[in-house]
């Protein structure tokens, strides 16, 4: 086990190693942001198990290994490299990032409508730095954690999606984050920004995949600014290598009557954690955030969802479901805070877990902190097994035990997948889950207990 000091050294060294050749060093504001983040890495608490936020999730697998900050640019990457990944067929604007770097030749951004910018953050740093400076760090604010600070200190590239006032995108945006197998384990600090101006609307789908059994650490930070009356569907599917570590910090800031419809699907990685931070800045905001996670042998999947109602008349729904098998481990920590002035808040949080084996483990902690008196709030959590009566019913109709389990697991997950509006992506995610379940129920054995 690492000491806190060793862990601190890991952060310090990673910042040092990654600080060379960063883009935009001539921009004073960016130098300042990176500089203070670098300092924050020295002073912010290092996560350890005594902290409530990290009670069930050890960062030892991350900090006990040397990850080289990724500086490759993969200019030679051709289409053929992606074919094996079996990505979904979708009529979409496509952005491909390899180990955090934008790959223009694999991306499909032709015929972008007026008033839409999407592509590489790195490019935008040279073409549009003024605008970026206004957006940057706005949602992250003072609530930095050390991994976000690390990411900020090493801002290099990432996705930028910006819609001007009133623009409604005709097609979804599909962002493919692929991690390529490299000779040494790398850390990718991708920085992503989605800015939706007043009344704009878009559907953004992010897929995180890897080639082979690559070992790497994906440290993603995504900032989402939803201006008044804007509407964003945001799907994130993580199916990375079973050797990979994935950490995502997603910060969402919602202005008046804005709507965020998120679906988080975690089906891969050895160590995976996503922190969602939702902040309602003005009244009338709606946030629906649904998630599905699976964890089997040698996997730890963690979701932390933190929703803060600081203003009245906003509504939030969080529904997360987990499928655990083998010796899989999952953590769900959901917290809704309703401030004193946030009257008429409508907030509901639920987490249910289906355990396919006795050795699987979930630590779930839904929390509701209410300081207002005129609100509608609820939270609940369940941990259970497949119902023997349900399995028997299917088997009595000629469906074998493994298939019966699979059908019921899919049935359990259905509600979450149903929330994905893009049909082709929903089907893709469902196929992915079915493939995964074929292994999962196999792990469980072929006969009942």
């Amino acid at each position, binding site marked *: 086990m690492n000491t806190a000091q060793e862990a601190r050294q890991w952060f310090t060294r990673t910042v040092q190693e990654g600080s060379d050749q960063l883009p935009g060093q001539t921009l004073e504001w960016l130098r300042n942001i990176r500089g203070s983040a670098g300092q924050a890495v020295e002073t912010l608490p290092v996560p350890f198990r005594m902290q409530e936020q990290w009670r069930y999730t050890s960062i030892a697998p991350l900090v006990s290994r040397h990850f080289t900050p990724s500086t490759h640019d993969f200019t030679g990457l051709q289409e053929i490299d992606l074919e094996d990944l079996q990505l979904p067929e979708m009529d979409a604007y496509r952005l491909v990032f390899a180990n955090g770097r934008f790959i223009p030749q694999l991306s499909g951004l032709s015929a972008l409508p007026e008033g839409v910018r999407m592509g590489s953050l790195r490019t935008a740093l040279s073409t549009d730095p003024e605008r970026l400076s206004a957006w940057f760090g706005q949602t992250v604010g003072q609530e930095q954690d050390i991994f976000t600070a690390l990411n900020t200190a090493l801002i290099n590239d990432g996705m930028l999606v910006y819609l001007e006032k009133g623009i409604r995108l005709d097609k979804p945006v599909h962002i493919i984050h692929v991690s390529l197998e490299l000779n040494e384990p790398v850390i990718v600090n991708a920085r992503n920004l989605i800015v939706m101006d007043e009344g704009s609307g878009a559907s953004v789908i992010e897929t995180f995949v890897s080639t082979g059994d690559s070992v790497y650490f994906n440290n993603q930070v995504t900032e989402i600014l939803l201006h008044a009356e804007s509407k964003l569907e945001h799907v994130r599917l993580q199916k990375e290598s079973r050797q990979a570590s994935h950490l995502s910090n997603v910060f969402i800031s919602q202005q008046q009557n804005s709507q965020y419809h998120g679906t988080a699907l975690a089906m891969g990685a050895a160590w995976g954690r996503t922190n969602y931070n939702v902040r309602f800045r003005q009244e009338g905001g709606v946030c629906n955030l649904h998630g599905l996670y699976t964890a089997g042998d040698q996997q730890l999947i963690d979701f932390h969802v933190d929703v803060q109602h600081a203003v009245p008349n906003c509504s939030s729904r969080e529904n997360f479901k987990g499928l655990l098998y083998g010796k899989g481990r999952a953590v769900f920590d959901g917290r809704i805070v309703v401030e004193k002035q946030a009257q008429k808040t409508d907030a509901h949080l639920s987490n249910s877990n289906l355990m396919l084996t006795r050795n699987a483990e979930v630590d779930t902690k839904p929390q509701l902190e209410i300081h207002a008196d005129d609100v509608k709030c609820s939270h609940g959590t369940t941990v259970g097994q497949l119902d023997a009566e349900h399995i028997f019913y299917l088997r*009595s109709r*000629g469906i*074998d035990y493994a298939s019966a389990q699979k*059908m019921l697991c899919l*049935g*359990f997950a259905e509600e979450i997948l149903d929330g994905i509006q893009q049909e082709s992506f929903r089907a893709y995610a469902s196929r992915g889950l079915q493939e995964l379940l074929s292994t999962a129920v196999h792990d469980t054995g072929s006969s009942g207990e």
Partner: protein
Amino acid sequence: MLQIKNLHVTVDGKPILKGLDLNIGTGEIHAIMGPNGSGKSTLAHVLSGRDGYEVTEGEILFEGEELQGMEPEERAHKGLFLAMQYPVELPGVNNMVFLKESFNAIRRARGETELDSVQFMKLIREKARMVKLDEKLLKRNVNAGFSGGEKKRNEIMQMALLEPKLAILDETDSGLDIDALRIVAEGVNALRSKDRSIIMVTHYQRLLDYIQPDFVHVLVGGRIVKSGDKSLALELEEKGYGWIEDEVAA
């Protein structure tokens, strides 16, 4: 078709069936009647291979083959079907997907070709019409929000779809009003054939007004204590089970 010899079954160590004998010939319809707690449902569940029922003695031969030790799905593949007393709701499992999977799983096990979606859709619509099941219910999750009658019709529709050699109807009449009962009975009658045997497990004679059995057996205390033709059912209706229980005791 089915021969049960000296069957003893315990549930949680408690003896329920205590030496049951029953012979079902091909194409015959048998009614098993009896008071509550006599072991009727246990018989239905043991035949279908449900967990929790331990056969301590005796044999169950289906077309000459011992059923004990056979998984529920294997029994279904061989042509056994149980229409449940309480069909369960399956959250998130689409009825159509379930029906097609069931149908094709049995075809696969028998080495027959599977039907594709278009072919299957045509077939299932025909079966749904037969039991007057609203086609909308095919698109819903299995039994989710179905009325009692709709659940039972969904069961009989599955029987029509899977065309079993032996169907066991466990208290199919329970919870049905007279109209629903008539529709279900019409469905079953349409499935009567010289190749198909049916066992109806029921507490009341009412169902037998609509589906006429060839034989009626009375199950009391875990054994068949009296057998006869359908007039026995009428006698039970009139006199209740008390006189038989007295006879057995005596």
